[in-house]
């Protein structure tokens, strides 16, 4: 039972990767990539958790409590916002590819021949 967070992280990673590999639409590829990235968030927060720990904010609880690790939360927090912008960049490339090749099917994005 205590392996559940890591199992969920592995599951999200593999199924997101399957979505990327099997998609026939580039926008779908990008959205499945988001699922893969969420696996890293679950993994990091699972590593930093401390049994019976409280959130690392001591505005209203005494400091002597056991607190959850704040370092991994910093990593995940900035990563979520940056992921949104990187997804935007990927989607801009998809729009550009659609304009160039006329389709968002990865199988039809042949390099220009000749």
């Amino acid at each position: 039972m205590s392996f559940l967070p890591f199992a969920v992280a592995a599951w999200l990673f593999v199924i997101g990767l399957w979505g990327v590999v099997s998609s026939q639409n580039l926008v779908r590829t990008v959205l499945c990539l988001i699922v893969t990235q969420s696996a890293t968030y679950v993994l990091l927060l699972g590593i930093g958790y401390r049994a019976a720990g409280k959130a690392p904010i001591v505005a209203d609880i005494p400091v002597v409590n056991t607190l959850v690790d704040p370092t991994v939360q910093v990593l995940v927090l900035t990563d979520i916002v940056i992921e949104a912008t990187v997804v935007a960049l990927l989607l801009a490339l998809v729009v550009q590819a659609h304009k160039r090749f006329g389709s968002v099917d990865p199988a039809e994005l042949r390099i220009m021949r000749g």
Partner: protein
Amino acid sequence: MSRRVRLGLFLLAGPGLAAVLVLGFRGLPAFGDYHGVYGRIVDNFALSARHATDFVTALNFDIRAFDTLGEEYILFAAAAGVALVLRGLREEGEGPHPAPPQQHGFAGASDALRSLALLLPPLLVGLGGYVVLHGALTPGGGFQGGVVLAAGPLGALVTGRYLAFKRIAPHSAVEALEALGAWAYAMLGLGGLVFASRYLQNYLPLGIPTHLLSGGFMPLNSIAVGLEVSGAFLLVWTEFLDQALISGRGDRS
């Protein structure tokens, strides 16, 4: 590589990857059994050393401020990349900003929607400012508050009038906002070099914990990152919505 070959390769390699992941994760300490040292040190000393009650923001903007500088510039580069790619999509003959279509063919929004569009922007900007400023005290900070700040002008989009949105958040102002945020963070770090002998070292008086002006330059860093994140998101939204709603052959109503 055709789709079938891709799927076949994945069916071969996928279970192997899953097995390796599960085996690797089994080597980790059990869930809840925390072994790290750095987290314990931060939990015990951040309040007395930095006078901040939110340790996540204290790590983000003070103790590991240098990492935040790098991440902020990733954001900046990604937004610049979006602008570069999408502006290159505009047809020849269009100027730097596409001309709005002459006719809308839009039936107009109800009064309820219009009053909502008037109420939402100041509310969201106020909430975003609150979240940004109270980063060192409660959950919040530049990154979260920046997105809420960017949602402010977006409230005007509730009525469907994209041009109203563009008037509230014009292109030049959005770009200037983002650049200002990025520059301000780097300059605050230079203050550390000048006054405290180390780049991004906290040099302002630390103040009393749980007061708004505490934590040294953490609120200032928070504001800089908040401005930059909101500018980046507004820029990305403007570019995409320009493409989707304005550019091209225009309205055919």
